[in-house]
């Protein structure tokens, strides 16, 4: 294990670690634009130059492995500072100074470096007219990515991403030298299933996302760690939000699952988190509806549930481990209902992890494995149909989006036979005739854990409080438990539910809430990779 000194701080790192990562471990940020820990090292931008004792020339930190006894100077070297200033002057020679109208502003590595290391004291000898790329200034490259070639600093991260990670090789440089530009073949759409990652890795505003451009300034956004609800892979992400509106998902680093990537499908589910269920609604036999206050609703629900002679419950693999646990304890354990969890294969999704291995989704839910761990009865479409075909007084749907079959004519007909209670995140055909509809807040307001396809229990946090009327499902369950007199389950937080589950379930034994985060990542590093 080489031990070296960087700017006077000693640090010991693993063999093969480059100087950027070694410096990071020593708490020193070496700037970079073209380096990316999950892409090949090209050494193009030259901003990471450092001085190494005994070497006459400056070296690039990204391509220099740490060696034992090495003495490296970054910020403490005047040669390095001078060289970096020169590199910045070169980079900014042709980079438009349009930060006020650039959507990358606030999360632009070039801007950050200019402000952090140079204190905003930038001056240039450049008096020539800047190079421009007429026609490539505001161009839709594909369904999601917008290009402004004038801002490109030729770091080639986007090209390397499509060549090395998504493996479509859809992006390339055209031409060479200072007039080279990024393009797709013959003007074809950039429809890579991971296309938005190209905008993520872009350190500047050359590639931005159509869905996010100009909707919110980056510095207004707050990021909350969460898990992608799109499939069973369980990619780690940040929910970027402001004033209780979700603006986007950005990847959260996890080398075992999604490195720093998200697929376009999962990423653009972000919008769906802004839909929350309606306020509780009671619909009478005559079709008239009312919205009673919360306590009344819970009391009425408890009465309905206790009165039912035969109770069946459709759970969902979209629910958290805690919610599934509570559902099992209340509906199956205490109320003796019959409970199934439908699982839908959905479209196949895939993701490349940080070790270059492709992971494939097994189904379209974030937590089918959680349901399996809790020993719930998993059914496919025909199983679900058979389940609904059997007669019951009362059917409870914990999530009408649990399976697309539930929105079909057949399912709706079957559900109309008895009474239906539905907990729903948004309007659904079932809500139109259900006796009770309880609004459920979206993932953005929920807290808990999912069990990924690779059987890892991963935690997600609540970005903001739910809107009036809607509650996270776990909270509905704990209120209900209190009403039913189940003091054991009437706990205050998802963490409490988790502790209960850990103490009671062998499959969850030994897990600790605090250790399930993956939230301890270095936000600066994060920021440099996902732009």
């Amino acid at each position: 294990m080489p031990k070296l000194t960087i700017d006077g701080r000693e640090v010991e790192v693993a063999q093969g670690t480059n100087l950027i990562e070694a410096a990071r471990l020593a708490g020193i940020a070496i700037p970079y634009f073209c380096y990316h820990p999950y892409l090949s090292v090209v050494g193009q931008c030259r901003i990471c130059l450092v001085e190494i004792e005994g070497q006459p020339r400056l070296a690039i930190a990204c391509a220099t492995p740490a060696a034992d006894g090495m003495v490296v100077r970054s910020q403490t070297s005047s040669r390095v500072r001078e060289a970096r200033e020169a590199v910045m002057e070169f980079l900014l020679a042709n980079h438009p100074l349009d930060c006020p109208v650039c959507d990358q502003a606030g999360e632009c590595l070039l801007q950050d470096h200019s402000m952090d290391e140079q204190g905003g004291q930038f001056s240039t000898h450049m008096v020539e007219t800047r190079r421009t790329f007429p026609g490539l200034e505001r161009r839709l490259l594909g369904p999601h990515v917008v290009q402004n070639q004038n801002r490109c600093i030729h770091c080639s991260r986007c090209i390397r991403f499509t060549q090395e990670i998504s493996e479509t090789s859809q992006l390339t440089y055209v031409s060479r030298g200072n007039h080279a530009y990024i393009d797709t073949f013959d003007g074809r759409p950039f429809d890579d299933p991971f296309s938005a990652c190209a905008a993520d890795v872009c350190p500047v505003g050359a590639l931005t996302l159509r869905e996010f451009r100009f909707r919110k300034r980056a510095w207004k956004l707050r990021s909350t760690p969460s898990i992608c609800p799109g499939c069973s892979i369980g990619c780690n992400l940040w929910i970027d939000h402001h004033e209780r509106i979700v603006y986007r998902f950005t990847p959260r680093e996890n080398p075992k699952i999604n490195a720093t990537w998200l697929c376009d499908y999962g990423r653009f589910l972000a919008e769906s988190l802004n839909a929350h269920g309606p306020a509780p609604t009671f619909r009478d036999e005559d079709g008239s509806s009312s919205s009673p206050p919360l306590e009344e609703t819970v009391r009425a629900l408890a009465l309905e549930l206790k009165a039912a002679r035969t109770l069946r419950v459709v759970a969902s693999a979209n629910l958290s481990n805690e919610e599934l646990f509570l559902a099992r304890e209340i509906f199956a354990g205490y109320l003796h209902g019959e409970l199934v969890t439908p699982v839908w294969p959905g479209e196949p999704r895939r993701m490349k992890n940080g070790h270059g291995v492709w992971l494939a989704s097994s189904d379209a839910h974030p937590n089918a494995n959680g349901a399996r761990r809790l020993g719930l009865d998993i059914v496919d479409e025909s199983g679900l149909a058979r389940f609904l075909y059997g007669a019951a007084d009362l059917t409870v749907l914990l999530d009408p989006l649990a399976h697309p079959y539930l929105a079909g004519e057949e399912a709706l007909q079957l559900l109309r036979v008895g009474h239906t209670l539905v907990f729903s995140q948004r309007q659904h055909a079932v809500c139109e005739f259900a006796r009770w509809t309880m609004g459920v807040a979206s993932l953005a307001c929920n807290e808990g854990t999912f069990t990924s396809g690779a059987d890892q229990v991963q935690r997600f946090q609540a970005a903001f409080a739910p809107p009036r009327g809607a509650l996270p499902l776990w909270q509905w369950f704990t209120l209900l438990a209190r009403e039913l007199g189940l003091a054991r389950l009437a706990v205050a937080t998802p963490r409490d539910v988790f502790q209960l589950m850990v103490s009671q379930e062998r499959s969850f034994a030994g897990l600790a809430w605090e250790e399930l985060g993956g939230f301890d990542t270095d936000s600066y590093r994060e920021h440099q990779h996902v732009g």
Partner: protein
Amino acid sequence: MSTAPIHAANPEELREVRFDAAMESQIAELLTHYPIPRAALLPVLWLCQKRYGWIAPGVMEAVAARLGLSPAYVQGVVTFYTMFHTTPPARFVLQVCTTLSCAVCGAGELLAHLRKRLGIGPGERTPDGTFQIVGVQCLGACGSAPVVQVNDDYYENLDPAKLDALLDELAAAKE
């Protein structure tokens, strides 16, 4: 021996390219020179340029498919190098060297003469598609400056009179 004209295929013909047996066998031979198919990219592109006169998008796609590359990758390589024509060239491409040794030995006069005689400058072509002028960088024949490369052939130690004679010969031999 006079320089042979380029016969550039019509863009329509190159919309979708299928290599014939002769091309296929030449490509197969080229592939034996290298341990990986990608390395044959430049030779195969040269083969295509000889055959079709230029590298149309359809040609890039066919080459990409043959060598297991993405079309964008092939486009990136084609446009890195200056000698692949990505638009149909004229029959004679006059590549006038403009780097230092030629510049101090009269390359500027040659270009001025070409403009006077053909009415076009670097980057342009005559309306009849016979000539096209390209200002190029050092051709590696500085001792016999100024130099013009016409299609594949070098013409060295030129002056306006010799250039006139050359253009007459090329124009006459164009069919």
